[in-house]
């Protein structure tokens, strides 16, 4: 059985649909932004960690030679 909407019901439904779409897009943008920022923070931390490891003084291999 078909349902016929009054003009008021149609306008209200269209308005609700528009705001649902806006809300979904805003949510997607927030998820993207959050993911991007967390990835950037992780990459920065990883880079700092790699640099710290690279600049750490090398293990003195000569200690083994002098003890002999």
């Amino acid at each position, binding site marked *: *059985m078909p349902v016929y909407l009054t003009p008021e019901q149609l306008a*209200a439904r269209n308005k609700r649909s528009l*705001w649902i779409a806006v809300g979904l897009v805003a949510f997607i943008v927030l*998820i993207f932004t*959050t993911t991007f*920022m967390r990835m950037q*923070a992780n990459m920065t931390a990883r880079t700092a960690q790699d640099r710290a490891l690279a600049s750490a003084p090398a293990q003195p291999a000569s200690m083994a030679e002098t003890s002999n």
Partner: protein
Amino acid sequence: MTQAPAPIPVHVPSTTQPEDFFQLLKPRVMSLVVFTAATGLVVAPGSINPLVAAIAILCIAVGAGAAGALNMAIEGETDALMRRTRGRPVAAGRLKRNDAIAFGIVLSVFSVMLLGMNTNWFAAGLLAMTIVYYAVFYTMMLKRRTPQNIVIGGAAGAFPPVIGWAAATGSAPWQAWLLFLIIFLWTPPHSWALALYSAGDYAKAGIPMMPVAKGAKSTRLQILLYSLIFVPVAIAPGVVGMGGGIYLTVSIVGGLAFLALAARLWRSRAGDAPDKAEAVGREAALYDVRAEAKPARNLFAFSILYLMALFAALLVESFVVPGT
């Protein structure tokens, strides 16, 4: 002879507007939540990316709004009985109860999830707990069972600064809980002052608010007693080093004014007679009361100003005074 087929149930489209969904979020309460949560986040030690902070505050605000939506959905029939609340979307029939519940649940899930992804899961857990505390524990269980409903249920409104602090640092030390305690102790005198001049509304709805359950005189005394505990706690951040000179000045001067208003209310006859709008039988603005009830109205209005001033002072000091 064949029987006529049973009519097919048809979902009748509603004329609910987006503004009705927005009203479900209780925007005025949300603004206070945003403010106190932002204060907790800013005052917390360490630094936080401004965008992360903004999204965290948004999540907390939406979570608070979701709790408000669930509250309105559950309380629809009760709200319809009270002058102050019968214009709300569910109470007025503009929005179906199930739609409000679905809206509240969806917002709750998304806000908690996004807060966890954006900051940490401790803050997200606190937000989830706050929503459940308000919608289930306070609205469904406490509100109709005890005159102490607002004392215990007020904790829900006190969590936002702790959530903000947790979002910034991943933990909630005693300083965050001091901010919690300020709002927790502020809630009874604030709410009971309002209840003193809208007791008739609560009685009609069967809600055992303090003036309905214990009478106006007892309520006025309890407001004074809670105020005597609240004001020293409100000053405490200035004493323990969380706030500086600005906070100390605001908290002491405002606190003395708060106590003076509470004492004046205690000596008055506010709440002894039916409130003005009830007597005249019309809708009334929130602050339109009988002369005898003015001390209650004044304390209610000042309590909002005082709480905002306290948190504003903390915020200002965080930005202006280095090292705080």
